[in-house]
């Protein structure tokens, strides 16, 4: 904590390319995410599992921030951690936990799960060995300061130009609308 460090940080901010924090930070977040992810599937108590899932989501939020994607991080918190998980807890709280904790912990299709896990591992190994060759060599500007605006341009386009994903975005929102209506109809007999 001295002037030299400050100026060094200033320079990294200004250059806008270097990672925002040390690899150490990444390993901590990744470790938290993995451990709490394991807890999610091993906890007998559903509320504990849900809380562990929230921790996982928050750790992933931290990873997004490290990737200069504050908008995605914010949305992750507001939608997943703040919204969906609250509803999850809401439902879980009403479930009879005594009974569910006595049930078998893993269901019978564990072979499928094992296969899926192996496939994922293979994918990771493949990506790791191939390295950069897999991804297009197009350097995205790591702009923390204008990340939100960039996303907006992608989704909605700029003045006089339709965005790259405008159509997909609209289709997705239409799909969600249908889902909402479906949920209402499913739960309410008389509307």
């Amino acid at each position, binding site marked *: *904590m001295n002037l030299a460090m*400050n100026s060094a940080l200033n320079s990294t901010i200004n250059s806008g390319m270097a990672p925002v924090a040390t690899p150490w930070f990444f390993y901590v977040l990744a470790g938290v995410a993995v451990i709490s992810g394991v807890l999610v599937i091993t906890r007998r108590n559903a509320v504990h599992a849900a*809380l562990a899932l929230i921790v996982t989501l928050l750790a992933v939020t931290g990873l997004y921030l490290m990737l200069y994607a*504050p908008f995605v991080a914010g949305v992750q*918190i*507001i939608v997943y*951690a*703040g919204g969906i998980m609250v509803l999850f807890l809401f439902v879980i709280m009403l479930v009879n936990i005594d009974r569910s904790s006595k049930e078998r912990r893993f269901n019978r299709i564990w072979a499928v799960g094992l296969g899926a896990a192996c496939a994922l591992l293979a994918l990771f190994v493949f990506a790791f060995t191939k390295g950069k060759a897999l991804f297009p060599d197009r350097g995205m500007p790591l702009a923390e300061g*204008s990340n939100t605006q960039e996303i907006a341009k992608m989704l909605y386009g700029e003045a006089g130009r339709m965005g790259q994903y405008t159509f997909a975005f609209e289709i997705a929102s239409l799909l969600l609308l249908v889902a909402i209506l479906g949920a209402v109809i499913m739960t309410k007999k008389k509307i």
Partner: protein
Amino acid sequence: MPNFIMSYLDSKEALTPGSAGSQFWALIYVLIIFAGVSVAVIAMNWIERKLLAHFQVRLGPMRVGPHGLLQPIADAVKLMIKEDIIPAEADQLVFWFAPMIGLLAAFTVYTVIPFGPSQAVSDMNIGILFMLGVSSLGVLGIVVAGWASNSHYPLIGALRSSAQMVSYEVAMGLAVVSAILMTSLNASGTGTLSMIGIVQAQQQQGVWFIFKFFPLGLIAFAIFAIAMVAETNRAPFDLAEAESELTAGYHTEYSGLRWSLFMLAEYAAMIAVSSIAVTLWLGGWMRPFPNLLHAPAWDFIFSLFPGLTFLALAAIALIGVARMPAHSFFRIQRIGLAVFAALLGFVALLLLVIAVAGRSADMSVAGRFNDGIDHVYWFVLKVAVFMYLFIWYRATWPRYRFDQLMKIGWKVMLPISLGVLIVTAIVGVIFS
């Protein structure tokens, strides 16, 4: 003075410590804000009890210290030395950390609240999104606390409050969006989510967003002002802790320090949401009429306000000293109040000296201090108005029933806020 302190004071550009990358100053800011909010919560405790008492034709706390000024401290000590009971049937671990969740969420949002153009810990690009997101985490603490207590009343309280907070977040979010939409009405056509950017947009457009596209801004503000009362579980939407129905709602089983953490979180959240309202609609740190009355003389007059406010408080305390009964029983109280008045007077004097010394608009240390004090003063004053409103609501209104609350949230506020958003967008396109 060490360099890293001077580096900040001498800096010509007004940047928040977070944006400037100065960890030292960020840490100082965090500590100041943490201490300041804690003190504000304690003060709120006293003010609320006093104000409620006066609304209800009684005196309120009078015994601990002059006019009960030390009552919050006595309360805090009492809560700290009380036994911390964890029910045997409760989920120990979750019960233990549930209050922390709410507290963490309530205090984390302060990192982006702009008390001034550079008086914030950090100026995040997603400021308002971050605030809404983190404050929505607060409900987790309530839900989990109600569940972990393993008791009916807390469970119902938790269910009520989570349903309530999730519902009102929707209307609140839409109202916020319509304010953010207004920030994009500039030459470049790009808006901002940054809290400081939002205030600067109001500065550039020369109008607080509450008056923008009258009455659209006002309606959006009203929606937010109602939703924020519901968000913080305050009367008349305090169903989650409805004392007469659910004993104490989600914190029925809590006691001592752990209970006080809930209270701390609730009041911190009240200040936080009021800050959002002030930032989005009431021009944040800006003093009244910054464009209309922009002569340096006006600047000087408005910069006297903080000192004069403290002077007025000191005068009120002095009147209290004079009005105290002339009985030996009250001697210590009178001395205490006189010391308090002297303290307020000293602060007033200090502020006035700074205002006079920093009246030239250059970037001297005194000038910067003066600007900072001005900004923080106007911001805190606006927030204080909201705090007063919270108490006023509580004294005046009965409590809504749960179904009525939901009806208002989904069938009244949501359509209105949606309509306001659409109309704001249309009007914005037409007039820009």
